């Protein structure tokens, strides 16, 4: 098997010799999903209470925030690779190209949105802690006590 003709390569016909890259990344992100989604599933089971305060206080901690940030990156990347294979199998020509373009944009947009939501959840929590601390200090100042 040769490399195909020069014209064929330019047109994207035949192997571009990058197939293993997609294949490997699908596996690497699968391993990432295994760890991070497994962490989320066990965390939710242990949490039990799914009220707003309970979930947000849990998620705003450093380790859950990091784990879910990694989850967002890993699952969107993995989903992008998987959707691409679906499109390559069932769509053809311009529609296929448009669909792959769209799924790439959607994966980046989804990743960015997920990370921004996590940042916002974390910052809300930090803001509340600062406010609580300030209130405690003010109360301590009023009563002349140590504030603990």
């Amino acid at each position, binding site marked *: 098997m040769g490399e195909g003709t020069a014209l064929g390569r330019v047109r994207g016909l035949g192997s571009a010799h990058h197939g293993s890259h997609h294949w490997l990344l699908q596996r690497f992100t699968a391993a990432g999903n295994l760890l991070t*989604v497994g962490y989320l599933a066990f965390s939710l089971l242990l949490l039990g209470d799914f009220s*707003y305060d309970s979930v947000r206080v849990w998620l705003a901690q450093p380790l859950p925030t990091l784990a879910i940030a990694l989850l*967002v990156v890993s699952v969107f990347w993995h*989903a992008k690779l998987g959707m691409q294979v*679906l499109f390559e199998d069932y769509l053809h020509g311009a529609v296929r190209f448009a669909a792959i373009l769209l799924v790439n944009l959607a994966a980046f947009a989804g990743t960015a949105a997920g990370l921004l939501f996590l940042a*916002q959840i974390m910052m809300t929590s930090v803001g509340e802690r600062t406010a609580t601390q300030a209130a405690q200090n003010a109360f301590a100042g009023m009563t002349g006590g140590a504030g603990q």
Partner: protein
Amino acid sequence: MAERPLSPHLSIWKWGPAMLVSILHRASGDGLALVGLPVLLWWLGALAGGPAAYESFVGYATTIPGIVVLVGLSWALFNHFCSGVRHFVLDIGAGYDVEANNRWSVVTTLGGVALTVAFWAALLLV
């Protein structure tokens, strides 16, 4: 003309467990991508948005259609997880003889259902 077997074709095939696990892997994976990821972002966005946004999310999630979607997504997740682990095993070159392949295809598919039941049982009963 001699009677010869026809080439394999879309309508000429014999059903096997490996086919089931293959198409379920694709369906559950793409289902997770198309439905699961928007729900994930909705959940995170609701948590970021505040109590009212979160109440709205929970309100939709606890309706009958919402529960059906969540249970369906959890099945898709656990199914995709089991058949994904099967892919890792196949990637190292193991499990290709017909008997083992059929057996693990069945175990994989049933495993996804069992994990779904176990997850919801642990969530609701423990």
